[in-house]
């Protein structure tokens, strides 16, 4: 008879405290908190870093309890050669030929914590499962190597040059299994690494229902015109420059006063033609973000690199329709399954879809209602928790 799973370790480079942490770490934190609430003994192994650029040790090392989870913080190794890492990172991200030496340099000088790996190795015998992610950190690759037979990788995999490294293929092939966020992410893993052994579960992140005020953001900004919302990091990989270009073309070609509201981190550089039409709210509370979502003509997610798209599900829960880039298999998959959003490949499709939402409120309502229903059925926490617990037990 298999032994019941009781003691869980979760490994991620950061433990989210405050608004600056990415979706993958939020996902792992939520898994940890939910499992602790369900009676599992959960230890979260993480680093003392807060900033995903500098990886400086900002928090004190040591243990603390958060929501029933024991959080252990370890310093990031400070002897990494940042120049060598950046050189290798650039070669890889530009899609140039990567030699074994480049790959070694990238792994060696990536975010690592020897103290964390040592502690995990010491505790390994008492652990039943290790959840580790996201995949593109050397820290996660090394943590998975401590007890691969017990490790379930939460990869948050994207089709990007790093996913093609041989160390990453090894990682996927040697762990106990993977917990994916969506079926296209699993399909991508199987395309890149071949048939995967063991657990290949699609779990995702749960969503709690929330209240929102659709008029709050417009009142706060004194905005009478419709707006499109973007929520998240602003960077080329997330498609924000594309959204600004599309908005400028839309306003110029249709002479409609469409605005863009952004929440989240990172610089926004709208062209002069968009002066007064782009409203950067920066970091906002969850309530303010949900209000902004609820009042939008559309929630636009122009990123092609998504393994889940938490904000897309939040936007549906807030009751708005979505527009996503057709280059993201995951976002299109979610829109198809939910009937809650449309996808565009090019500017002309974007323009037609926005005009449709603008001129046909009943279509907007139908999309938004379908999206909300989908999230309530597929991503309610009890449903996600059941998928997670089943995957852990396998």
């Amino acid at each position: 008879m298999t032994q019941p799973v009781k003691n869980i370790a979760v490994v991620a480079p950061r433990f989210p405290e405050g608004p600056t942490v990415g979706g993958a770490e939020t996902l792992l934190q939520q898994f940890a908190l939910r499992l602790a609430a369900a009676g599992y003994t959960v230890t979260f192994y993480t680093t003392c870093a807060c900033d995903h650029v500098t990886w400086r040790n900002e928090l004190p090392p040591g243990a603390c309890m958060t929501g029933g989870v024991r959080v252990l913080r370890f310093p990031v190794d400070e002897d990494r050669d940042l120049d060598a890492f950046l050189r290798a990172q650039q070669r890889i991200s530009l899609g140039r030929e990567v030699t074994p030496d480049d790959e070694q340099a990238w792994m060696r000088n990536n975010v690592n914590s020897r103290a964390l790996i040592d502690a995990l190795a010491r505790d390994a015998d008492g652990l039943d499962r290790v959840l580790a992610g996201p995949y593109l950190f050397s820290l996660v690759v090394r943590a998975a190597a401590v007890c691969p037979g017990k490790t379930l990788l939460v990869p948050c995999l994207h089709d990007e040059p790093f996913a093609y490294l041989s160390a990453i293929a090894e990682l996927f092939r040697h762990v106990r299994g993977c917990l994916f966020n969506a079926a296209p992410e699993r399909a991508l893993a199987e395309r890149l690494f071949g048939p995967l052994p063991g657990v290949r579960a699609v779990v995702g992140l749960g969503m709690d229902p929330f209240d929102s005020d659709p008029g709050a953001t417009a009142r706060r900004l004194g905005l009478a015109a419709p707006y499109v919302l973007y929520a998240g990091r602003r960077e080329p990989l997330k498609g924000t420059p594309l959204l600004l270009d599309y908005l400028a073309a839309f306003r110029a070609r249709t002479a409609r006063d469409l605005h863009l509201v952004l929440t989240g981190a990172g610089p926004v550089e709208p062209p002069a033609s968009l002066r007064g039409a782009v409203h950067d709210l920066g970091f906002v509370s969850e309530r303010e973000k949900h209000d902004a979502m609820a009042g939008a003509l559309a929630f636009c997610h122009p990123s092609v690199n998504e393994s889940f798209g938490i904000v897309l599900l939040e936007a549906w829960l807030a009751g708005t329709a979505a527009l996503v880039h057709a280059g993201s298999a995951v976002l299109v998959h979610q829109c198809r399954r939910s009937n809650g959003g449309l996808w565009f490949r090019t500017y002309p499709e974007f323009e037609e879809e926005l005009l449709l939402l603008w001129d046909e409120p009943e279509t907007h309502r139908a999309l938004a209602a379908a999206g909300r229903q989908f999230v309530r059925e597929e991503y309610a926490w009890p449903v996600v928790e059941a998928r997670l617990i089943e995957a852990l037990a396998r």
Partner: protein
Amino acid sequence: MSDDIFRIGADGIETDAVVARIRERVAEKMERGLYTDGRVARAERTNLAQLRDREDFLAFYLDCLREAVLVDINDFEIHERRARFSRPLVLLKRSIWKLLKFYTYRLWSQQNQVNGLLLSAVESMDSRYREKFDALEKRIDALERKPS
């Protein structure tokens, strides 16, 4: 443009069908030249990496680029929002614009030449590779049909 809007009007909705109809609509409007516009070319500059596998879109993009290739330094209406000294300010701005135009004329003309040459080079590469691919595809077809 609003008289030309595509309508769904559905209670329930099937997004696959909506997107398919939007794409038909876009294809038809492209044929009518309604998207051959420099502004579309500019809007797509950050999307080109996603479009590299779509031959039809590259042809369309080149059409848009032809519309956007020349830098516009024609005179334009100069306004002054401040009511006080509006007339002298407009005159001053007009003089500045004339000077700017005069001193940047060489730059403008070189830029237009470079843009035009680059567009011709891209068009010629595109047509050469299209011909080459067509010839290769025909050859592969012929070889595949040949009894072994």
